[in-house]
């Protein structure tokens, strides 16, 4: 070894820029080093680096090379440096990216199947999991993620024994599978992150643990006979899984084929269809078109309209994805939380086929998770408490989704203790959210939990009490154009209804008029519109203008003045006041009149008007003109 290194060293002075003979000779020398010697790889790369550097850099690289050689010979190359030098570059990032995407899909299936097993004890899931891990093992081997490959390999071995009934499935095995699942997920995240700097990731996999655990599971497991029916089922399943790929069989036995498309392409298509619809509307409102009496022309126009509408509907459907995948993730949330809280909780899912705008899916995950956690934590009681109340010790949470009146409703129902009005009121009073004189309806009391900084939990638990309140949930839902409503019966449970628009592209708006201008206020923030009398309006010292609605007073915002628009009404009693609910409080907006409620297509205003944030976006009206949508939270 040292001879070779000496030999290499002797050759260093002869290294000249671009001299192929010396390069070949040195390569040969380096190659003759033993394979398990880290210096081989380090030197090999440094040599290439030096020879293929630019002319300007050559001198620097050459001296770096000599220093490296010296360090190796004297053994002063420390571990971290060694690792740094041996970091491999990812050559085909596209391939790695595909690997991450596919494996993540697989792991999601892993999780779903594993969670399902906990409920129905159907052991045929092992085959599916085996297939997922097997694929990860194969691909990671091919991509030279050796550590991941090794980890997956050990996991696969155990799964193989499981599916051949050499090991029984018990709680320990299930726990083991969950840990492996999380470890694989984390590794994929590491791979995905490594794509950013282009070097191979350093995995945080605990190989020692998995080796030991597998060994112990093997030893601890008695040879147990599984009845033949199950065995046949497994065999059948394993045959089926091999055939299944991108084809899925739906309920009617029809085969649906899937095509992966770049989202940019879909967006481009949708943009153009949107334009087509706008032009269509303009065409059919055009005076001269309306005057056409010629039958054939009318027929052609009718056809055009029909096809355009069909095109719009079908392209809108491209944006939609089933909510099921998001619901499935909640299974895990409930499982983990029920373990941690030592409560028995079952999550039942329905309506997972309901489709929602794909842009909403990601934004829905966190608020949903939060609400589910909240139900586990504050809704469902401890088993003992439940039994005392005459309920089954296992608590239930029902998560469902359905269409209702042009909206999508997500319902989170639990059979826990329900919201305590007394506790909420006390808390709200303590935090100065309300005054003792205020008389609130049940609904208003429940809605107090969405106020910033509100938490009714008597003790701050590890899960729900991490400083994120329900106000964050509400804001997230509102930003999606939705709203949250609560129903609760003391001792019987609570229901949270999340009402979402079908798509993010369309907004349900209230059109108001100020002078010659039209503006739109999102309908979900509008509480009511009132025609005040002069007595309802007064000026409070330090607080400015206020408007009184029944026994409550709200700040009054004179929209015409804020927007510097000429208006017809000089005082609130001349026009109309719209009560809207902002993040923090209710305010009254003064306008001339309400023109109506209408669904409008939301259009981004782009960077140009970024600093005028009190206008969130534009909307194209039926007559082709633009109206502006007001962001009420930015008005004050």
């Amino acid at each position: 070894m040292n001879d070779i290194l000496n030999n290499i060293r002797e050759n260093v002075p002869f290294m000249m820029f671009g001299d192929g003979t010396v390069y070949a000779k040195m390569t040969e020398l380096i190659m003759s080093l033993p394979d398990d010697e880290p210096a081989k790889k380090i030197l090999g790369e440094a040599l290439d680096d030096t020879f293929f550097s630019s002319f300007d850099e050559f001198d620097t690289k050459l001296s770096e090379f000599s220093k490296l050689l010296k360090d190796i010979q004297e053994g002063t190359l420390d571990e971290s440096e060694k690792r740094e030098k041996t970091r491999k570059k990812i050559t085909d990032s596209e391939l790695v990216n595909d690997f991450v995407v596919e494996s993540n899909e697989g792991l999601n299936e892993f999780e779903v199947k594993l969670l399902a097993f906990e409920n129905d004890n159907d052991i045929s899931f092992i085959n599916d999991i085996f297939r997922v891990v097997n694929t990860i093992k194969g691909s990671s081997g091919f991509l030279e993620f050796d550590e991941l490959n090794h980890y997956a390999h050990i996991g696969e071995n155990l799964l193989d024994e499981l599916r051949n009934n050499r090991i029984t499935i018990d709680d320990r095995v299930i726990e083991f599978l969950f840990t492996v699942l999380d470890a694989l997920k984390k590794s994929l995240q590491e791979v995905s992150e490594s794509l950013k700097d282009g070097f191979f990731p350093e995995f945080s996999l605990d190989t020692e643990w998995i080796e030991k655990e597998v060994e112990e599971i093997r030893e601890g497991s008695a040879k147990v006979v599984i009845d033949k029916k199950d065995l046949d089922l497994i065999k059948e399943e394993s045959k089926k899984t091999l055939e299944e790929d991108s084809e899925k069989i739906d309920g009617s036995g029809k085969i649906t084929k899937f095509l992966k498309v770049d989202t940019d392409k879909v967006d481009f298509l949708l943009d153009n269809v949107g334009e087509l619809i706008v032009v269509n509307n303009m065409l059919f409102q055009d005076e001269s078109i309306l005057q056409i009496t010629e039958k054939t022309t009318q027929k052609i126009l009718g056809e055009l309209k029909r096809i355009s509408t069909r095109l719009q509907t079908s392209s809108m459907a491209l944006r939609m994805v089933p909510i099921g995948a998001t619901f499935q993730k909640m299974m895990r949330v409930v499982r983990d939380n029920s373990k941690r809280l030592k409560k028995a909780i079952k999550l039942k899912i329905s309506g997972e086929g309901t489709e929602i705008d794909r842009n909403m899916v990601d934004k829905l995950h966190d608020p949903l998770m939060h609400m589910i956690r909240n139900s586990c934590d504050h809704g469902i009681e401890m088993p003992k408490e439940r039994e005392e109340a005459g309920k089954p010790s296992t608590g239930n949470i029902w998560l469902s989704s359905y269409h209702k009146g042009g909206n999508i409703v997500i319902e989170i129902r639990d059979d826990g203790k329900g919201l305590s009005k007394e506790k909420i009121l006390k808390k709200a009073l303590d935090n100065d959210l309300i005054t003792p004189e205020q008389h609130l309806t049940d609904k208003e009391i429940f809605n107090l939990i969405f106020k910033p900084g509100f938490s009714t939990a008597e003790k701050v638990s590890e899960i729900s009490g991490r400083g994120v309140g329900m106000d964050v949930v509400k804001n997230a839902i509102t930003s999606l154009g939705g709203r949250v409503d609560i129903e609760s019966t003391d001792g019987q449970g609570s229901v949270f209804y999340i009402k979402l628009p079908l798509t993010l592209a369309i907004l349900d708006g209230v059109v108001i008029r100020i002078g010659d201008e039209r503006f739109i206020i999102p309908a979900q923030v509008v509480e009511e519109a009132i025609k005040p009398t002069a007595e309802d309006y007064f000026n409070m010292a330090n607080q400015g203008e206020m408007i009184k609605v029944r026994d409550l007073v709200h700040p009054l915002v004179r929209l015409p003045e804020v927007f510097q628009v000429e208006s017809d009404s000089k005082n609130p009693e001349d026009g109309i006041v719209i009560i809207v609910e902002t993040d923090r409080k209710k305010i009254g907006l003064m306008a001339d009149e309400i023109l109506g409620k209408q669904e409008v297509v939301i259009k981004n205003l782009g960077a140009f008007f970024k600093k005028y944030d009190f206008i969130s976006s534009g909307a194209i009206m039926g007559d082709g003109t633009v109206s502006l949508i007001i962001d009420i939270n930015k008005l004050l």
Partner: protein
Amino acid sequence: MAEKIKKEERSIESLAGKYLTFYLGDETYGIEILKVQEIIGMMNVTHFPKAPDFIRGVINLRGKVIPVIELRKKFNLETHDDDEKTCIIVIQLMVGDNEIRQGVIVDEVSEVLDISQEEIELSPSFGSQGNIDFIMGVGKVSDKVVILLDVNKILSSDELEALSNI
């Protein structure tokens, strides 16, 4: 000194090319044809609250909402009512990595002129008051004087900075 002359020559060189010319009052202006997306007739413009004077508002350009700038106001010229010759030139520009589309209201569109290097003079410097830096130069084509505008600078530097910080 020699360096400075060289620099000027280079920019004159880069100014040569095809320009879309239009009228604003008695003057003829030109903007690089490559930055022009289309010319559309005057349409209903929605006023944008609190925006500066020279921003007339927003329009619906086939389903896209874009801002429209009133060039007369921007150049402190007397405004007059729109007539059948008034039109909007839609220009496309890059600010940082963002592509921005905006409309510019002008009195009347004239023609496309090919202006060669010899016909261009760089903008005369009027001392140090620098709010005319949106003028790149002046083209003299057969007795006609065309003021060449830098579309990227029609917005003030503050406004552009606000845009590029996104």
